[in-house]
């Protein structure tokens, strides 16, 4: 016993040390992971407040030594209505000649992106929820074929659709309008939204549908009062998917938009790398603004995110 006592105490101490080491290792690993994940974001924000000269310092200045808001000032400057020889360089408050002349187009482009993305989200929900409900809960001839036909449209690469879409949009007289983007983005996103929701609805018991019908609900009421409340994670997934797909889309926006009236954020940001003089710090400032809406949406729906993103992945 007397021999076992110190041995037990030693074992306890060793166990405690082992536990503390594990916790410390976990902390260190977690900190490294968090640093790895957040470093690009921190650099994005930090460099947006640096001058073009400071951003290339070696070693890099993670905290700006001479912080400046000149990049943001150029973005928030009022767009010029008429550009003349005299006013042609007014967008560049630093007079360094490196802030792109299209800087003031960024905020209108953000507004265009928001209008398009929100419209696509709303129309996606209006189209995809009833379609998915019908496909999941109503037995009709050609149901499986319909699902496969919808999914097949997603197999076609976007590049192959560009010219047919272009001719379609041109013949409708919608070139250089936001409507052209909303229509084509819907064509691209709705099939996937229907797929996500159909799988989710199929996982919900048919008895719910029957019970609601027995209680006198119409199909629409059953959908709105029974299935939609139970499907919030999947609906959030659709919202996120449709919003982000529209927010980030580049190829179709490149083809269908021509002026700042309809150009969206990815086009305007890409144009910043086209000029004779290119500012990394300015592009990073644009990047900071560009990530705000998606981050806000992610925070807003954070509680549904994990379950929503796996919705439809496995049939229930």
């Amino acid at each position, binding site marked *: 016993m007397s021999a076992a006592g110190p041995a037990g105490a030693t074992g306890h101490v060793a166990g405690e040390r082992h536990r503390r080491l594990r916790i410390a290792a976990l902390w260190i690993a977690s900190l490294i992971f968090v640093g790895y994940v957040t470093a690009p974001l921190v650099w994005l924000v930090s460099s947006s407040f640096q*001058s*073009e*000269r400071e*951003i*290339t*310092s*070696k070693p890099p200045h993670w905290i700006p030594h001479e912080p400046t808001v000149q990049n943001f000032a150029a973005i928030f400057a009022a767009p*010029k209505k*008429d*550009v*003349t*020889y005299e*006013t*042609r*360089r007014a*967008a560049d408050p*630093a*007079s*360094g*000649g*490196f802030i*792109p*002349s*299209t800087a003031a187009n960024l905020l209108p482009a953000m507004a265009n992106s928001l209008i398009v993305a929100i419209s696509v989200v709303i129309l996606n929900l209006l189209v995809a929820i009833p379609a998915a409900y019908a496909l999941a809960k109503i037995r009709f001839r050609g149901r499986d074929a319909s699902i496969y036909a919808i999914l097949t449209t997603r197999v076609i690469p976007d*590049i*192959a*659709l*560009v*010219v*047919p879409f*272009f*001719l*379609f949009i*041109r*013949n409708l*007289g919608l*070139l*250089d309008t936001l409507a052209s983007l909303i229509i084509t983005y819907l064509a691209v996103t709705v099939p996937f939204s229907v797929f996500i929701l159909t799988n989710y609805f199929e996982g919900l018991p048919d008895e719910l549908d029957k019970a609601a019908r027995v209680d006198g609900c119409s199909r629409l009421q059953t959908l709105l009062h029974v299935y939609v409340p139970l499907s919030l994670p999947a609906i959030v997934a659709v919202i996120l998917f449709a919003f982000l797909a529209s927010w980030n889309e*580049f190829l179709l926006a*490149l*083809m269908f938009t*021509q*002026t700042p009236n309809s150009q969206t954020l990815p*086009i305007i940001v*890409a*144009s*910043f*790398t*086209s*000029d*004779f*003089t*290119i*500012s*990394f710090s300015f592009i990073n400032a644009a990047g900071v603004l560009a990530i705000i809406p998606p981050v806000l949406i992610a925070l807003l729906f954070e509680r549904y995110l994990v379950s929503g993103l796996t919705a439809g992945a496995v049939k229930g």
Partner: protein
Amino acid sequence: MSASSLSRRAVLKSAAALAASAAAPGAVFAQSGGPLAFATWSAAVDQVKSHLAAFEKATGLKVDYSNSPWAQYREAMITKFVGKAPVDVLWVSDSWLPEFADAGWLAPVDGYKTLTAYNADTDAFSVDSMMHKGKQYGITYYTDFMGFIYNEDMLQKAGIAAPPTTWAEVVEMSKTIKAKGLSEYPMLLSMAQESWLIEFMAALVYSHGGRFTDDKGAAAMQSAEGGAVAALQWIIDAVQKHKIVSPACVETGELAGLKAFGAGQHAFGLIPKYRLRTLNDPAQSQIAGKAQIALMPKGGPKGTHATVGWMRFYGMTPRAAADPARAEAAVKLMEWFGGKANGEYTFQKMLFKDVGAGFGVKSLFQDPEMRAAYAKYGDIKVIEAQTALAKKKDVIAPWFGEWNDVNGAAWQQAIGGKITAEEALKRSAAKWDQLKKQG
């Protein structure tokens, strides 16, 4: 058709053909008779807008101006051409001329003496770059060349009095600079697979007295006596043997290279000449006032100071050319930008003074205003001499894009030590001849 030959261009054209039948009945120009449609990439936008405002005021003509990012501009324009979108005047890269002209997307301008009259005051390289199958397709927008830039401050610290005149001297000086701890990789090369890559390669090949193709357009790059093999071998040695060029050069794009040079990390660099203005701007560069230009070093016994040049021009579409009134308006617009406006090369001078873009107008080199502007950040005598030695890329062909992918990958593999310079260029030459045969 092999998978590799299924290019983006082919996909676009096929898709257009499929869609054309459905769309044909309505395929009329929605804006026929309306304002001139002027398409550019997103560069010098405010300079263009200001000059357009003056044009509209001076002529009473209306212009619809649109722009899109450079990196995707070619694809965007091809889509618009096959989709018959309204475009009258556009910026065109010399690299796309054969493709655009052969496809019927550009109209020759030989019949417009107002435009061709400027050839006499335009450097031969620029005029030559606008010619295809004996016809001229535009008027100069801007032109520039790949420059050999050095960091004067770093050379002085290393005790080097004058910049190198040969690539062998570049190696020796780089070794000295490296030994003194002034730079880990004194020579900057940006060899990432991007649109600039062919310009970097061509500058090296030309200065080694080499060519990619012969006078008949057949592959010449693989010749053991030609400069292309020697140029690629120089890079391989610089990376692997002398360690004066970073092995990461195959992932370094032109822009990243520029920023690294501006941060003072290199002594020498192949950099587009118009970047001199940026490198000597204290607001953007840590070596402001220290970036200097020298003639391209010579490589090997056949070496010359030649470099590669490029130019962009204003082109007219067949849509504009088909209608005499519209064509006349398009010519006025092209002259206003590419030639003289109110008796002066207003736009060329504005571009140079605002953003440093080079000009292909010979008389502007004698303009006191331009000489004074150049003197602020560059040696105009060297620039003028190097301009005269600039040569157009000898690989401009409709199949350039497809060949360039294979050629770039081969060079990168050789730089990485996976294949020899000879193997890389044989591979590149085989692809060139195969594509040439296919037409």
